């Protein structure tokens, strides 16, 4: 009962890869956007804020369809990527990572933004008066102080990426070994007669992976907190 089949193992490996790349590629963007939202004022900021949070409230199938329209081979962005670099996003694991990244983006930005807002700006000011350049201040003062929030954001986004289903199946469909992640594999198994055992097994694995991620984020955040305050 507990021994996963090869197909299920393939889904687990693929999910981990998709979630890793989803988080790795969106992290720098998320930090930049969190910075814009927390530290700057510009016209249309409220719009950017709304746009970032959109994937939390829009149906995932809508996100998937928009990705299909934009990043498909005939879409404006997908077409350009293919013509210029020969990169195909749609129907590949890269597309699955993109869908996961978009859906997890708000969670990541929120966590990072909160930690950025909690950074004591007097520490940055002190560093500036001591002659540090803006970029150095960010790298040596601000970023280390944000670490708990960044870690929390990364882990939340990783867990969310592991669970992405609606946008994924709409955008990159269900291809074994390429886009059949854990949730898509569970969906496939629930559609198959006598697939219930496998679906249950993968569901348990999904819950365990999510729990590990959440506990890890909590432990990491605590350790970092202890180092900063203590």
């Amino acid at each position: 009962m507990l021994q996963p089949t090869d197909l299920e193992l393939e889904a687990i490996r693929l999910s981990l890869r998709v979630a890793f790349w989803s988080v790795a590629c969106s992290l720098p963007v998320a930090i930049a956007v969190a910075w814009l939202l927390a530290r700057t004022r510009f016209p249309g900021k409220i719009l950017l804020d709304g746009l970032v949070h959109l994937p939390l409230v829009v149906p995932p199938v809508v996100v998937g369809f928009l990705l299909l329209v934009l990043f498909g081979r005939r879409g404006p962005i997908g077409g350009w990527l293919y013509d210029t670099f020969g990169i195909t996003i749609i129907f590949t694991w890269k597309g699955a990572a993109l869908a996961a990244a978009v859906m997890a983006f708000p969670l990541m930005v929120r966590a990072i933004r909160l930690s950025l807002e909690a950074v004591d700006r007097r520490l940055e000011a002190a560093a500036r008066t001591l002659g540090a350049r803006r970029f150095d201040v960010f790298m040596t003062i601000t970023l280390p102080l944000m670490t708990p929030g960044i870690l929390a954001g990364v882990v939340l986004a990783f867990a969310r990426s592991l669970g992405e289903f609606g946008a994924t199946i709409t955008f990159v469909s269900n291809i074994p070994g390429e886009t059949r992640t854990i949730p898509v594999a569970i969906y496939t198994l629930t559609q198959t007669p006598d697939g219930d055992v496998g679906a249950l097994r993968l569901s348990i694995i999904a819950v365990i992976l999510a729990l590990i991620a959440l506990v890890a984020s909590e432990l990491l955040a605590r350790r970092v907190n202890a180092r900063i305050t203590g």
Partner: protein
Amino acid sequence: MTRTSRRVLLTVLAGLLLTMAAPVQAKDLLVFAAASLRNAAEDIGKAYEASGAGKVTYSFAASSDLAKQIENGAPAALYISADTKWMDYLADRKLIVTDSRRDLLGNRLVLIAPADSKLAIKLAAGAPLAQSLGDGKLAMADPDSVPAGRYGKAALESLALWSSVEPAVVRAKDVRATLVFVERGEAAAGIVYATDAMISKKVRIVDEFPESSHPKIVYPVALIAGQDDAAAHAFYDYLVGPKARGVFLDYGFSIIGAGAATN
């Protein structure tokens, strides 16, 4: 909590209660139908409502999805599957009213391509389908479970094409999701029912699969055990009757079973 915010909260709660109560009051008839039936079934539902007989609510999805939902207690009164396998699945579990089961419709399986595509191929044993696709994808409903995909896989297998095109296969959620991939030109070709190809201007039929290449496409209908009240029976009779038959024919389905003709 201020008075205003309390009032707001109460209004929201009252609204929520109303939305929960609404479906119970209306007593809509819930019909589960294969995704390929969407347009035809919706027209039939509208005509039925216009005749004053009552309201019909549909849930369209892959037949496999719907069968699993019924197995898990979904309150459907009627189920129309796109193959006999999933109806058998429910029959084996004693979830349908046995003597209400009848084969309602037939359909044909076709290979489609985006309207502006130049793909041309005659579907026969050993046809160069994989070569024609090039690096393009072949979209079809999941060949392991969804009827349209299973018919498609059977047809490709009997034409000895499956193993060569399998790496190019993109598995869609249901037959209508397949249609979207081809309409948008993201898949070079797709396998859908003739009726699906007919409702879209953005795709064209490349060729029809020989009828002998796949199991006969049959849409059985049945009442769901325990949900077969008078309203369900009334709509069932309408569905197998001449008015509904006209709509199904307009959409390109064929009518099967002598029973349908006597109505």
